[in-house]
């Protein structure tokens, strides 16, 4: 390695950096995934066995039958992502600029609820949001909830659950991106522009775009495949594509459809990422940087 010229070394470097992680992903993700692609085009059932048949009808049937759940998943995940952004941005900003030496502690606090298992967290919300509970009563007395309304087993409950569970995935990338903005830049901007609001809009926000991009993706993508919030906090009218895939796979043993639904979801997400990157003018994030 040392005998190679500097130029050669520099050229090899990206591949060297990439190799271990990529190898891991290829072996433990791509190969299983390719197998699933194979499965999605098979026909058959558990008794008579499966055979590869280029059966693309599985995909078209899946879209026509479950387009509601697909759209619903994207909608819920989208709303949750926006809510996460609204809630997490000021939090990330505060930690990045105002927290001083307590930065790492606050970051830890953001993530700490995950160390308490998912089941316990969701059960706690079910207790808090109970129909006769304190929260529901308060909302009723204020008039935000109708007298026979409920908080659980509703669409807002599911979206709130998704938002709650993915908040750290938005907050941390936002923090990471905000923290690296040079404070002197902000000072200069404040001197240049009349108001801090303008400084924020013209300097901070654009520089935070990588963080917003990263956070949105880390929130939206897994949220659209989520099933557990809809299962525990929703009714059948809130069930997402994740629930369909779950039952197809485990209960109905319809592996080709489950695989096809997964690939359809993945394609939608990839297209969404691509469009989103364009919208943010972040195409340069994808192509070679300076």
């Amino acid at each position: 390695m040392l005998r190679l010229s500097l130029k050669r070394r520099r050229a090899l470097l990206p591949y060297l950096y990439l190799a271990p992680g990529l190898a891991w992903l290829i072996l433990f993700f791509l190969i299983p995934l390719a197998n699933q692609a194979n499965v999605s085009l098979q026909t058959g059932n558990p008794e008579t066995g499966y055979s590869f048949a280029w059966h693309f009808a599985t995909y078209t049937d899946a879209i026509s039958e479950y387009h509601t759940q697909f759209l619903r998943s994207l909608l819920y995940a989208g709303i949750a992502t926006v809510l996460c952004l609204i809630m997490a941005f000021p939090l990330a900003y505060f930690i990045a600029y105002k927290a001083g030496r307590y930065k790492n502690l606050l970051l830890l606090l953001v993530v700490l609820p995950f160390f308490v298992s998912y089941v316990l967290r969701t059960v706690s919300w079910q207790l808090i949001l109970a129909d006769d509970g304190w929260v529901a009563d308060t909302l009723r007395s204020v008039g935000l909830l109708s007298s026979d309304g409920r908080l659980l087993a509703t669409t807002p409950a599911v979206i709130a659950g998704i938002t709650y569970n993915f908040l750290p995935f938005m907050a941390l990338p936002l923090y990471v991106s905000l923290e690296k903005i040079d404070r002197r830049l902000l000072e200069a901007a404040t001197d240049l522009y009349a108001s801090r609001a303008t400084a924020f809009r013209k300097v901070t926000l654009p520089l935070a775009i990588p963080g917003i991009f990263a956070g949105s993706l880390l929130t939206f993508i897994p949220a659209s495949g989520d099933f557990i919030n809809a299962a525990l906090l929703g009714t059948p009218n809130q069930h997402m594509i994740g629930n369909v895939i779950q039952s197809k796979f485990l209960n109905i043993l319809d592996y080709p459809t489950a695989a096809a639904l997964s690939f359809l979801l993945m394609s939608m997400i990839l297209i969404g990422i691509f469009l989103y990157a364009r919208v943010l003018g972040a195409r340069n994030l994808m192509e070679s940087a300076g």
Partner: protein
Amino acid sequence: MTRRDRIRTWGLGVWAGLTLLYLFIPVFIVVLFSFNDNKGRFNFTWQGFTLRHWNHPFADSDLAQALQNSVSIAVISTLIAVTLGTFMAMALVRYGFRGRSATDMFVFLPLATPEVVLGAALLALFLTLNVNTGFVTIVIAHVMFTISYVVVTIRARLEGMDRHIEEAAMDLGANEWTTFRKVTLPLIAPGVASAALLAAAISIDDYVITSFNAGQTQTFPLYIFGATRQGVPAEVNVLATILLIVVLGLMAVNVAIQRARSRREMRIAGVEPADIGRELAEATARG
């Protein structure tokens, strides 16, 4: 600092505090119910305060083992994922190479794949390779799906980062490894730390993929999911609380060590810590 700035800072602090509070409400309930004097096996109705669950929290050795497994898996898989992911992020951000955009998109795919399909597909691979499922396969699975989080998070740090310092270091004669260690790494440290926290959190809470690839190994989430059929015992709440306290404690120790170290360094440099403190406070207030 103007009054408006003070209000703005105060408002920001309140919002941040409320958001953190919101994140912690269920946690408070979990901690609270570890003291619940429940009569049956379910733990939903407050019956009164008791310390009895705290007497022998580790009595069920299987539950204790499950918690231990979860923690070990989280630590190991985080270390591996952060290492692999950091290097991947660096390659993707800093170098143009063939297949870069494709690799970029590829990194998002694990996030987009539904867990049940991912878990079962991975299990199929292990079975075909004749690998016994257990602790190791869980770690492999966890690394696999946390790498994406790590890469995306560290990219947000690397993007648009000024490379001049690193180039200067290399011009001065440092090789790539030294530059990375002494210059790059400290610069991306917040990204790495955040990525590590995320990866650990995901790993310690994962259920679906783990359940497929765990073999006969038990983890904390697996145990709890299974226990919901009969009622999650309050000892689980106790253990969860203990875990939180331990992690917070470690972080508090870390903060204290950092503070002592920076004080010592400043004293060595002949600077009074108090001055630095005041300057920092003013600077942050302005910023």
